[in-house]
């Protein structure tokens, strides 16, 4: 057990927390994305869109609980500092998540004439949640401080994260739908992709200017050469994605999952870029993950639990995705 030193455990839990955040961004990202671009003109499209995420959204959202839970459990001081600074946006995020989560179920059960209200609730709740998340990310990048500049940046970040979620959500829909709705998703995906790219470029430019150590990480050889691969891969994926979207849909629905795959790579790259920028800080420029970690005994006991349980979670998640593979059809309760 000599490997389980306090420092290694802190690092392992930082990695686990980061993984949970990344998985959350990708998984709830696509279902939030489907929510914010929900086509309000056609009811059948809305039904199919929502049917495509119906069996998954609940488990997707659990990754947020795990991410916040791990932060709370492994880095309590950081959890307090971050959520103290993000008190109001976090409350807005929660209200957004509540609204969309319940709208999901209400829309299928209320009187037919009320369904449209819950569809709007679903769309607006998703939008509120994604914008709040982007806003929180923006404030975090700006060192958890509120001034006119940081708020403007955070609002911009809110829009970019919304665009990124819209992009991955529509990429998911391309894989899950056919016909007119698929065409619609391809168009939306392209549009959202442009905004996402603009957002990533802007954040990449501003982040090193604001945080001195970020500038250092990305410019100091020899590691900087290695790190350069991340933005290169990311931008290559945007180019590839553009080419793919231009050609889709192909006969026999070939390549319908390519955009979603590309989006996943883009999310991983962007996240890795951010994580590298801030390492070893868990609260930017204030607290390193080693300072914030909780006691070794507690982390050890969770560590063993996580090692056993996470593979099991992965296994039954795979079963669920396998059970609902293929195109989305009507959302039937049984």
């Amino acid at each position: 057990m000599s490997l389980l030193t306090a420092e290694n455990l802190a690092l392992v839990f930082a990695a686990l927390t980061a993984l949970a955040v990344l998985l959350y961004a990708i998984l709830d990202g696509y279902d939030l994305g489907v929510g914010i671009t929900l086509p309000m003109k056609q009811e059948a499209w809305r039904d199919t869109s929502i049917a495509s995420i119906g069996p998954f959204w609940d488990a997707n959202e659990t990754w947020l609980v795990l991410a916040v839970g791990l932060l709370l459990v492994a880095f309590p001081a950081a959890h307090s500092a971050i959520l103290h600074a993000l008190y109001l946006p976090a409350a807005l995020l929660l209200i957004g998540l509540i609204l969309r989560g319940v709208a999901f179920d209400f829309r299928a059960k209320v009187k037919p004439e009320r369904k449209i209200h819950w569809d709007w609730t679903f769309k607006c709740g998703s939008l509120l949640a994604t914008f709040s998340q982007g806003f929180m990310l923006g404030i975090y990048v700006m060192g958890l401080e509120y001034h006119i500049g940081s708020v403007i940046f955070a609002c911009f970040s809110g829009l970019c994260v919304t665009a990124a979620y819209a992009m991955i959500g529509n990429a998911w829909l391309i894989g899950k739908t056919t016909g007119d709705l698929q065409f619609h998703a391809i168009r939306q995906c392209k549009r959202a992709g442009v905004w996402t790219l603009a957002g990533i470029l802007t954040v990449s430019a501003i982040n090193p200017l604001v945080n001195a150590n970020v500038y250092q990480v990305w410019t100091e050889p020899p590691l900087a050469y290695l790190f350069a691969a991340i933005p290169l891969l990311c931008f290559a994926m945007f180019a590839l994605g553009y080419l793919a979207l231009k050609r889709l849909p192909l006969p026999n629905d070939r390549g319908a999952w390519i955009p979603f795959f590309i989006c996943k790579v883009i999310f991983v790259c962007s996240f890795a870029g951010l994580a590298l920028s801030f390492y070893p800080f868990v609260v930017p420029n204030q607290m390193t993950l080693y300072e914030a970690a909780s006691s070794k005994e507690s982390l050890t006991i969770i560590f063993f639990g996580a090692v056993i349980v996470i593979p099991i979670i992965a296994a039954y998640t795979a079963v669920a995705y396998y059970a609902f593979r293929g195109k989305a059809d009507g959302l039937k309760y049984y």
Partner: protein
Amino acid sequence: MLDTLLLSRIQFAANISFHILFPTITIALGWLLVYFKIRFDLSQHPVWMRAYRFWVKVFALTFALGVVSGITMSFQFGTNWPGFMETVGNIAGPLLAYEILTAFFLEATMLGIMLFGFNKVPRWLHTLATLLVALGTTLSAFWILVLNSWMQTPVGFEMRDGVAHATDWLAIIFNPSFPYRFTHMLFASALTVCFLVAGISAYRLYRGDNKKAPRLTLKTALFSAAVLAPSQAFIGDLHGLNTLAHQPQKVAAMEGLWHTEKGAPLVLFAIPDAETQTNRFAIEIPKLASLILTHELEGELQGISDFEDAHPPVAPVFYSFRVMVGTGIAMILVAWWCSLRLYRKNELTPLQYKVLMGMSFSGWLATLAGWYVTEIGRQPYLVYGVLRTSEAVTTVASEQVALTLIMYLLLYAVLLVAYIKTLFWLAKRAIDVEEYDLSLPGLPEKKTEIATEGARV
């Protein structure tokens, strides 16, 4: 302007009161669905699937409300009560982590298969998914009640530099009040579901629905309630004795005992007055409290005045306790009264249907009142004897907390109304549906087909 502490307490109380409504239903409803599903698998009779189909919708809606209000809870620890995790995080943290890892993912993932997978996965896998969802909700209750009970009766730890460190995990998990609180909560959940199912089924029957499924669910719910309700009174009594041993000031507040006395009376009703430390307008039965709690007529019970500044406010605990017990007694009486009639005549009188409809949400009332007793009764401590509530609160400005509190309250009020209306709308729609399709087991049958259908259920 109220201060951050009071606003945070109100906000937490509002959040957790709203949240607990939904798990209280899903914990037991999950197992009821397992029962319906297994009966269907064994008998292949479509009525079991009809019962399943109707209640799985209620389950889905309830579950969604529970999940989203639960996410709010997980944020509240950090946003409003940072002192909680800073002091006892080494114990609360792993318990919460295990809840997420072993319960949340399991129920959330399996729920997808349970709700939408009937035609997509093998029958056995669908039944298994239903079982795992029920197991997940129960496991989740297990872990969170371990944590709550540990906050009531903390053991298995030592304080180093003002921070709790775990020394014995088994002692922490099976802390003295846990077995009682967990059992009491599981039964509360079961009773809540019994009365909800009975109430909604009564609504359908009263409105002229003569299908088999609501009659079946009414019978299942009422007969279960007739057994569960008195058992719950017994468990509650044991729980009360356990509380007396570990948190005597809570029992003193419950009983309205201001001063230590021998042969203490049972106060049926009174208006507790904290100023004068007396009960006004008290209706009492002499010596009965001592008899119930110590099993001796002249047994000594400690009063509130023994605990100086470390006792809970008396009035809310005192009233909540009476609401809980009163609701419980009403449940026993109604369950027996209606069960007897149902057993003899196989149907209920219109009055009984109305009473059952009125008691659809009586489980919520009793459960909330019970939690108020136990949670307010722990005050002024957050972790009994270890951490005071006032020491754990955030430094966030009170205006911000007031703003979020108002937002949450408005949202919760709207959602609660929508939830209850939707339940009755679902019931109403189930009455009117007339499709008849045996190729898909469980689709609602025609009203007229029932009477001739011979299979026993």
